[in-house]
């Protein structure tokens, strides 16, 4: 617990984290993960979660009454920064468990639900999200998975897609349609679904980068007890906004910080090895321009984190602007890496030890940034309409 003890002295807090990371993170973890199976990867993620749990860094941002440490955003930033600096593993498969689930239950869950579900997270219980459907992507509110009341249960039938880590999940944050006649935002109800319940079938989706991080969920007569409804019937859309808004930029922040260290390591290595691209003025100019834009993005991410501590945060379109900037920059950087890697860069490899050691994997993976979590096209609509006041016609 020495780390949390240091929380009132941010520099000391950072150092404590740094020491802990130096001690606990296996130096060869990336090498081991390079060709790890999904199962090995998940086992590793659970181990990592357990380690964080030991020092109180599993759910440090949660309020004390729910087992958290009630740390401020400033502390989360410090943690994320130290994790990035140490190139420590991310807790990617726990994103929904750590952020979206509590972000939904804290404001909208019943006491019973909170007591029942929150403590499991630190123990490694895994949550997924059942929002998107094959025909309801950008237009989420058109979702059609039906929930029909049957005594004290609801019976669910339908199909979900793009559900991250759902193949390992214990619970699901589920959006369903309970009133097909109401205006589309008004007939949606929000449930907690047991992923082990009968009728839940999970089919992994194979991605263009060779991995399978998402699944499709096929739901056939799945029974959910009414006590697992979050909020009131047909009030799910409003609650879903809390879920979607709960990721306050910390993940993007950590991503940007990791990229900073990645690029720095790449550049240092290029200098040491006298890489050919350094002798090409044009490529060198491109590279420094990336750095300028990267620094701008990192500053914007800090701005948005501060904004989130102000009241009217949800009105800001800055997160959309940041997404447009950093995801496209990431794509351009990875594309640059593919170009300079030449034919060697075309060798199939997933994760890599070296930063940008598998440029094509990074390049193809970069589309998850420009497409997932609201495509950049949707972000442009948001910026133009909400931010610039251009009319929706």
């Amino acid at each position, binding site marked *: 617990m020495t780390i949390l003890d240091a929380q009132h002295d941010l520099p000391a807090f950072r150092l404590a984290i740094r020491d802990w990371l130096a001690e606990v993170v296996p130096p060869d973890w990336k090498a081991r993960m390079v060709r790890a199976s999904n199962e090995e990867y998940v086992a590793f993620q659970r181990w990592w979660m357990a380690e964080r749990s030991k020092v109180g860094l599993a759910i440090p941002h949660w309020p004390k009454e729910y087992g958290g440490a009630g740390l401020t955003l400033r502390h989360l930033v410090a943690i994320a920064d130290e994790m990035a600096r140490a190139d420590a593993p991310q807790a990617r498969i726990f994103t929904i468990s750590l952020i979206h689930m509590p972000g939904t239950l804290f404001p909208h869950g019943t006491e019973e639900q909170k007591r029942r579900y929150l403590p499991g997270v630190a123990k490694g219980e895994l949550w997924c999200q059942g929002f998107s459907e094959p025909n309801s992507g950008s237009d989420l509110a058109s979702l059609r998975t039906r929930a029909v009341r049957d005594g004290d249960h609801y019976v669910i039938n339908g199909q979900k897609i793009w559900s991250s880590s759902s193949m390992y999940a214990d619970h699901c944050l589920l959006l369903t349609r309970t009133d097909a006649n109401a205006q589309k935002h008004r007939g949606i109800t929000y449930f907690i679904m047991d992923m082990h319940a009968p009728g839940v079938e999970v089919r992994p989706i194979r*991605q263009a980068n060779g991995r399978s991080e998402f699944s499709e969920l096929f739901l056939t007569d799945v029974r959910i007890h009414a006590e697992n409804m979050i909020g009131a019937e047909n009030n799910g859309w409003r609650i879903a906004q809390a879920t979607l808004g709960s990721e306050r930029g910390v993940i993007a922040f950590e991503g940007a910080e990791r990229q900073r260290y990645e690029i720095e390591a790449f550049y240092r290595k290029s200098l040491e090895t006298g890489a050919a691209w350094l002798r090409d003025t044009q490529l060198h100019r491109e590279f420094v321009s990336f750095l300028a834009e990267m620094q701008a993005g990192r500053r914007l991410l800090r701005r948005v984190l501060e904004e989130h501590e102000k009241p009217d945060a949800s009105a800001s379109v800055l997160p959309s602007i940041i997404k447009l900037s950093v995801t496209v920059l990431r794509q351009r950087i990875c594309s640059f890496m593919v170009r300079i*890697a030449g034919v060697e*860069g*075309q*060798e199939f*490899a997933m994760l890599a030890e070296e930063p940008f050691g598998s440029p094509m994997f990074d390049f193809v993976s970069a589309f998850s940034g420009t497409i997932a979590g609201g495509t*950049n*096209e949707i972000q*442009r609509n948001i910026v133009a309409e909400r931010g610039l006041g251009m009319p929706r016609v």
Partner: protein
Amino acid sequence: MATKAIETAGSLDQATLDALREGIAAVLVEQSSSAAVHAFIDGENSLDRELWSQAASLGWLGFGIPEQYGGLGLGAHGLAILHTEIGRQAAPGPYISTLSAAQAIVESGTDATRNTWLPRIASGEISAAVPATPGATVLTRSGTGVSGTLRCLGARDAAFVLAPLGDAWVIVELAGAEVNAMPMWDRTREVIDIRLQNARPAAVLEDPEATSVALLRAMALATAADSCGAARSVTERTIAYMKTREQFGQPIAGFQALKHRAADLATKLAVMDEMVAHAIHRAAADEPDAEIWVWLAKAEATEAAVFVTTDCVQLHGGVGFTWDFDPHIFLKRARLNEVLIMPNTALRDRAAAGLAAITRTGRSALELEP
């Protein structure tokens, strides 16, 4: 002989070329369908072999080979059509390496060499490997033979490799040689590492300079044409998808922002096609400025294809990021094309040098008509 092949090609009128294209397209659309290619990259069929034998039986492999060596002598124009259609269907197989090696042999092989290899290529009996980036590595003489390791474009069962030896070019048979296929992001083509130890060359090509030029030109034009086909095809498939995909109660093809991007893609396609056509035109007529346009065609067309395929993944939205849809296949193909032969930056530098050289002689490098 190249000239002969070219004359033949020159004499082909547009109608003949169009008929040729339609014939090839009909076969490939049927054989190398989206489903077939997906099955192939998942190791569920041997589409590459089936296509290869079909290509042979239809004479495709002899397009660039003069009649007396068992080819059809359709020259650069015919080859471009073939590579474009192959790219359009993301067809698997060692076409670029084999047909480019053939062009080099046509250009500077002795009659004996031509008689030995060209008919076997035209008949589909064998395929060839060539360095993925010629000039990057060369073989060295060792005792009675040649040795060295080469990263090549070509099938793991290629019969021979056309490789640089000092300032000469040699044909080395690969029976018994150590060949390792590199696992590729683009599963529709193969890159292999060939390790030779005291291998005895089957033939030496006269005029190494002419050989390099012929090989590089052929590879550049083939890669550029393949990229044009791939870019056009993925755009067509993407627009077709956008017409069926509905969000917010309408096909997403109706959203103006996406329409404008599609229009820009269509413009890029038209321009890249003409860049390549111009290069082929100048190369076929053996104009002194041909090199400039061949290098630029490869650089511009392969980068345009990367831009187009990238945008098509994005225009698909979520499914564009999945293995089961087509865009990633074309994206990966475009990215391999981009890095073949030599970096596009180097190609542009060569084009710039060529432009300066020709301009200094007082001639123009910007004529269109021969």
